[in-house]
């Protein structure tokens, strides 16, 4: 196991460096210059040259690449042009928010997906099964940004202004403007209410995919002999399904974690943009638009590293929960 882990970790390093290299050259080969945003009409050419030199843009690309890679390996991500702060400080502000949002969404998606998939499998070919299939495929085909807008429209705007429901959810930000003046309990509630709509928009699209896999996986498991034995012993349906079948049916679902993490992070770009959520997805989008090279590269590097780590965790979990799998 330790050997396997070490080999996987070593294998992940060239992967991450490779991704960083692709991003570096994609960003640096493209036309455009980050100093353009600081230019004023009638600026002296010497000043422009000085500014380019300050950012290190006057050097040839291969030199910049080696320098950048070396600096990054020592944990120095450079200086963000648009935030006028070290990139690391920017990351420290925004990364936790993205992690909270995506972790909650991932948990919601898996719990819902596993539950719905199990229900479908146990009631195969019933009306519940086909009904859920249609609804899930509908969500599966939905762009997350549109789902987000529709949730805002119904559960926030219409619920508040048109239908005048007692409960509606805030449509933007992480906390209300009067957050600092609230009591601790009210602060918790405020954070929760702000989390609901972004989480749902991110999670529901994934839920559909997970439920489809779960249905197939569960169908395979409940046809096995040991399940028939459990039924024959006179155990109730609930115990058989949730205690005996579920554990084995969950094993293939674990690999989905690794597959869905990139999808999830792609989703955060839209969701954070729509909900004005101060996270990495929105930050990297804005950084790309302002040609903030160091921040773009650091952000992409962060996403790539997270994906690699998630894949690693999924593989290790897979080995732990299924004793039949041995890695050598």
């Amino acid at each position, binding site marked *: 196991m330790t050997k396997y882990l070490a080999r996987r970790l070593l294998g992940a390093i060239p992967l991450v460096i*490779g991704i960083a290299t692709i991003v570096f050259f994609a960003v640096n080969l493209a036309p455009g210059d980050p100093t353009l945003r600081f230019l004023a009409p009638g600026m002296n050419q010497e000043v422009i040259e000085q500014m380019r030199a300050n950012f290190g843009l006057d050097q040839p690309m291969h030199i910049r690449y080696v320098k950048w890679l070396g600096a990054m390996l020592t944990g120095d991500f450079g200086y963000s042009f648009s935030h006028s702060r070290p990139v690391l400080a920017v990351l420290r502000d925004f990364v936790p928010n993205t992690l909270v949002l995506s972790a909650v969404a991932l948990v919601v998606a898996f719990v819902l997906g596993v539950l719905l998939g199990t229900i479908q499998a146990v009631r195969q070919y019933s009306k519940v099964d086909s009904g859920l299939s249609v609804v899930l495929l509908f969500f599966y*085909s939905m762009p997350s940004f*549109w789902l987000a807008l529709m949730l805002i429209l119904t559960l926030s705007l219409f619920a508040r202004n048109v239908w005048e429901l007692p409960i509606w959810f805030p449509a933007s930000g992480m906390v209300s403007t009067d957050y600092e003046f609230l009591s601790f309990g009210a602060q918790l509630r405020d954070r929760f209410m702000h989390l609901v709509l972004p989480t749902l928009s991110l999670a529901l699209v994934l839920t559909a995919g997970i439920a489809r896999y779960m249905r197939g996986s569960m169908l395979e498991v409940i046809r096995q002999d040991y399940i028939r034995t459990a039924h024959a012993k006179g155990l109730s349906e609930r115990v058989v399904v949730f205690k005996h079948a579920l554990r084995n049916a969950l094993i293939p679902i674990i690999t989905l974690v690794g597959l869905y993490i990139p999808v999830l992070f792609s989703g955060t770009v839209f969701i954070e943009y729509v909900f004005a959520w101060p996270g990495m997805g929105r930050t990297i989008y804005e950084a790309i638009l302002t040609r903030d090279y160091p921040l773009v590269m650091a952000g992409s590097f962060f*996403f790539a590293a997270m994906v690699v780590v998630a894949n690693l965790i999924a593989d290790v979990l897979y080995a732990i929960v299924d004793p039949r799998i041995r890695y050598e």
Partner: protein
Amino acid sequence: MSSDVGSLVVEHHQGTSRGGRLLSAILPGLPQLLAGRWGVGSAALLTWVGLLWIVVARPSRVASALGGAWDEQLAVGTLVVGLSTAWLWSWRDVAAAHEVKRVGVSVWELAVRAFSKNRTAVAGLLVIVGLYVIALLTPLVAPYDPAFQGDLLRERYVSASAAHPLGTDQFARDVLSRLLYGARISLLIGFVAVSISVTIGTLLGAIAGFLGGIVDGVIMRFVDMVISFPRLVLLITIIALFEPSIFLITAVLGLTLWPGTARIVRGEVLSLREREFVQAATALGFSKTRIILRHLIPNALGPVIVAATLGIGNTIVLEAGLSFLGLGVQPPTPSWGTMVADGRNVLLNAWWLSTFPGLAIVFTVLSFNLVGDGLRDALDPRLRS
């Protein structure tokens, strides 16, 4: 008369046949519908009636389109081809109704049979074909020009009415017309981008799987890298650095989506290359190029077709997402993603602006997913019941 049962039956037969031909000449598809063949019957009938309605309701537009821009001429061409296909098919179908013969059944025929039993998949296919036909016919069908602005004082953000079935937007433009023109963009980008990515992915996957060794290692490590990266971040990085345009976005989508196909094809080829027919081809001294192109790729096409169908749906969602972020199709060209974005700030006052383009995306992608699932079941003999 009751004694001569045989001749009565024959006469009866001829009667339906003659009546069927007459019916088919007026309303193609109706004889098939009466015979209980709902799918093909309604498809032919709808095509005939729908296209004829355009000619009858908008004769002046059809006439002016004849000498118009290339997309208008294409629309007229579609009209003519669609009408004649529906008519000729129904006529020949009725005429040939008594001469059905079957000699042998190929793999593809088996797949077609399995697919046509799957009702939801067939429905999805009909929707897709209908969408492409409507996209081609848009210049003749759309009530307004997509860039036409109404009275900015009184006709902005008007909700659904007879004049504007889906309302108007911030520039008093007709939402339905823009939706129809937007369909052209989405379907075109989806189709072209997936064609590019499937071609590259199939070739590289087959090469990697067949040659193995270093070539395989290099290609597949690159595939690993691209797949483990959030696709949207990669796309916006590339697109934002250049000037966004339809060509750029199609090219970038096509050039970044191939790794998934490459992985699938490589897996297929790895098992195919051990089979006898490939060994026979090698023993006969065929070149590697010939073995890959003529022997391996055709046998790996099943999963590729499934992946391509599902890929078009995915690509349409991605394109809409990029346009939503302002990095895709640029205004004033209508696209579903930009239309959703246009309605974003006026959700409460003009909810239809974002809602309808989004629904269009969902139903289009849903149809592609249904067809993809149906194809997967039909093309995989293990899943066929």
